[in-house]
């Protein structure tokens, strides 16, 4: 059941009415039932894996909470890690792993032929696995008490707004909210609905419309070159943002309608002035997860192993940063999917970050010399940096979107050739192209005017008539300018 489907348009209001009619202490049961129904609409059998892994983590969490012996706690931690990562590996990475080993051994004439299982990974497995891992690790680190209510814990794992594509909310934040009773608050409910409409607009009108162009080019890249490839690449950058942030807005909005606060996943990432800042603004729930449970532990482990202050004339802390950022970004790429294109995408971002880290002092010095003090306060310079960062990010989105490495290399090598020929596909669909550009322009305009406050606040400060016209325009454009073809949410596939 997609958020942008008739089924969901019926499902959500029914759940909402029942939610406000149900006494507070039983709402968890209603939401749990609704979440499992939502999940089972896709493939009922995979709910069994969700239940099993939820029960294992619930048990491990309780046992860890009871025990004060480190060895015992570590045993339960390993049991949980094994079950979670085992399922994730089995469903998502096993075939990729076998295929990679096969191609690695092939030049040495070593026969390795494990047949591919071709299993479709359960929906949202990467998201709920990370949610459960954060819960278990926090208990192990004694940062959190285990949840004793199995139903509420199961709801935390399967909560329908975020089960398919996040945000990857921390148990410390979300679980306590299931103990509170939220009454009908007009401002909160309407705020949530408005956010849902905005998210739907981004997904249906912008992302899906751009997706048509992007798919045409990226599914047959060898038919195109130059300007067409450049436009399709920039379009994909916007498509993936509108698609994922649209999904997140809808998820946050529907949770807000019911009274729950989910964490923000995006903070206008394409207004970042550097790659480092981009990663502070993009998929925040994943990046903070990776920072807390991967980057920092690796950095700590590396710096502990380097006894001297400098190794090969490089500071120990720089070594720690370099190693941990590269590993983290490679795993971040792998998290997105079992394909070398994702791993290279992650690795390239790691290199960007490393380069940015290595040159930070030199760049600062030059900036001061050329542009003067406080250069980021100068709008032109800031604009150039934003544009440069956007281009850098877009360039490596190519690896993320391309169907294969050879396609990605073809696109990169042909970006600057064939500028003289007008992109034929855009001429064929002038109206669609125009609608897409207007919608994208509108989205960026809204982002431009909401630097310090959320979109809801931005709208709510305007006069009533203006707001109603805007809401009507948004709803009518969703209803009439949305794309007919089924283009699934990009991040739901991970």
């Amino acid at each position, binding site marked *: 059941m*997609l958020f*942008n*489907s*008739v089924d969901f*348009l019926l499902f959500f209001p029914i759940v909402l009415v029942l939610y*406000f009619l149900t006494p507070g202490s039983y709402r968890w049961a209603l939401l749990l039932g609704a979440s499992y129904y939502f999940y089972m609409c896709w493939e009922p059998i995979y709910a069994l894996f969700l239940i099993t892994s939820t029960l294992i983590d619930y048990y491990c969490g309780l046992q860890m909470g009871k025990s004060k012996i480190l060895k015992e706690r570590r045993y339960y931690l390993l049991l949980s890690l094994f079950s979670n990562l085992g399922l994730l590996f089995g469903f998502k990475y096993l075939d990729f792993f076998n295929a990679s080993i096969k191609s690695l051994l092939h030049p040495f004439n070593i026969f390795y032929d494990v047949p591919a299982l071709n299993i479709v990974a359960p929906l949202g497995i990467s998201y709920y696995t990370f949610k459960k891992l954060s819960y278990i690790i926090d208990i192990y680190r004694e940062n959190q008490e285990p949840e004793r209510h199995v139903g509420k814990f199961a709801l935390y794992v399967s909560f329908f707004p975020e089960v398919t594509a996040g945000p990857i909310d921390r148990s410390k934040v979300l679980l306590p909210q299931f103990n509170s009773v939220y*009454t*009908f*608050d*007009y401002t909160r*409910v*309407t705020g949530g609905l408005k956010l849902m409409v905005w998210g739907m607009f981004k997904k*249906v009108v912008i992302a899906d*419309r751009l997706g*048509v162009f992007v798919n045409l080019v990226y599914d047959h890249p060898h038919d195109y070159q130059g300007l067409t490839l450049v436009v399709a690449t920039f379009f994909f950058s916007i498509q993936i943002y509108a698609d994922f942030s649209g999904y997140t807005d809808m998820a946050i909005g529907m949770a807000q309608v019911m009274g729950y606060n989910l964490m923000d996943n995006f903070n206008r990432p394409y207004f970042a002035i550097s790659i480092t800042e981009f990663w502070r603004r993009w998929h925040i729930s994943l990046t903070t997860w990776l920072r807390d449970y991967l980057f920092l532990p690796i950095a700590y482990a590396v710096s502990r192993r380097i006894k001297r202050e400098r190794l090969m004339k490089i500071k120990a802390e720089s070594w720690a940063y370099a190693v941990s950022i590269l590993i983290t970004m490679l795993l971040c790429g792998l998290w997105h999917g079992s394909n070398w294109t994702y791993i290279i995408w992650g690795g390239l971002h790691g290199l960007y970050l490393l380069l940015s880290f290595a040159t930070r002092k030199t760049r600062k010095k030059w900036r001061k010399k050329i542009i003067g003090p406080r250069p980021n306060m100068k709008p032109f310079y800031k604009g150039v940096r934003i544009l440069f960062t956007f281009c850098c990010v877009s360039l490596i989105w190519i690896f993320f979107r391309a169907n294969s490495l050879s396609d990605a290399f073809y696109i990169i090598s042909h970006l600057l050739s064939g500028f003289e020929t007008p992109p034929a596909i855009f001429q*064929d*669909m002038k*109206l*669609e192209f125009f609608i897409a550009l207007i919608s994208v322009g509108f989205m960026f305009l809204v982002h431009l005017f909401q630097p310090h406050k959320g979109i809801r606040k931005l709208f709510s400060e305007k006069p009533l008539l203006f707001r*109603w016209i805007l*809401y*009507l325009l948004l*709803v*009518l454009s*969703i*209803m*009439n300018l*949305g*794309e*007919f*073809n*089924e283009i699934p949410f990009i991040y739901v596939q991970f």
Partner: protein
Amino acid sequence: MRYRSFMFNFNGVRKIRDQMSIKKFIVKLTLFLVITFFLQSLLSFYLLRFETSASRLNKYVFKFDEFVRLNNYLKAKTDIIYFGDSTIYTLGEGDKDERTTAGMVKDMTPCYSLGSITHAAYHMDLYLEFCRYITRQKNRPYFIIIPINMRSFSPEWDRRPQYQFEIEKIILRGGLLKQLVLAFYKPLCVFKYNFSTISRKEFLNTPVFNGSQQMGMVRDFNNKSYLTYSENNLKNSIIYFYMYTLNREHRKVKSMVEAATILTQNNITAIFYITPIDHETGEKYFPGQFLKRLRHNTQLICSLLEAEGVEVLDLSIDLTSKYFRWVRYPNEYLRQTGRKYVAEKISHILLNKEIDKRI
């Protein structure tokens, strides 16, 4: 006690406040939905005329053009309405004459005005709705030409969800439902509403027969493998497309008979013709069986139509393989020579009927 009563009052006030805000919310939401409904109804008639990228890319998405065209033909008192599927307008490789079959008929019968309503995968159920619609109009054509594509009775065509054309049927039937569908067609498509009465799952679970023997389900045949050439794929595609045994209970056969009845009752001359098929290829892979099955099926069609007093032209085995465009599997797409042959046959009938018109 005092504290309790304060709490009671406080809860009471909160409850009233909640109820008030629920009321306010429901009123505003209803108002918003009513305005949206009203504006959408107004907008839809304008916006439907714009083709979306989906309708450009997906030829099975509903298009308004066909209905506009039909109404224009009827308004102009066109003599002949020629229905058809993609076989009418698809050209062969290297065809110098790029006229469609309908276009050729038009040129061969200059005494008549002719309008064609053709669309990929149109079929008998839809032709029936078109006939019903036409008979309800004040201006009616003298002739309606309806091709009978033998593949349209196969599960591949008959049961495919994209080929059900439910929207078109609703629009042709008219009434309030038509107005609602026209107003909300786009939003429903955007929210992935499935208009088809047959789900994809049902389609894939439809049995495929070779005569009376079940050869499998649609899912076994519908894997696009027939798009790549191999002897086995070719054989499978012939089974999938043509080797069924037709009976009078088939829904498209019923539609065909009903269309014939309606047209006869309304004094519109119906000309049905069975489109030529590449029987040589069929016979090559199923010697003896293919022609026998085809004859059985075409004879049933002819007998049923003749019983209704309608003229039917059986062209199914008139042309050899060289008249057909080859697309990795046997098909009904004709080269210019094939289209010309069909057009001549139809024109011949029409020109003989010219006398009727003059009378």
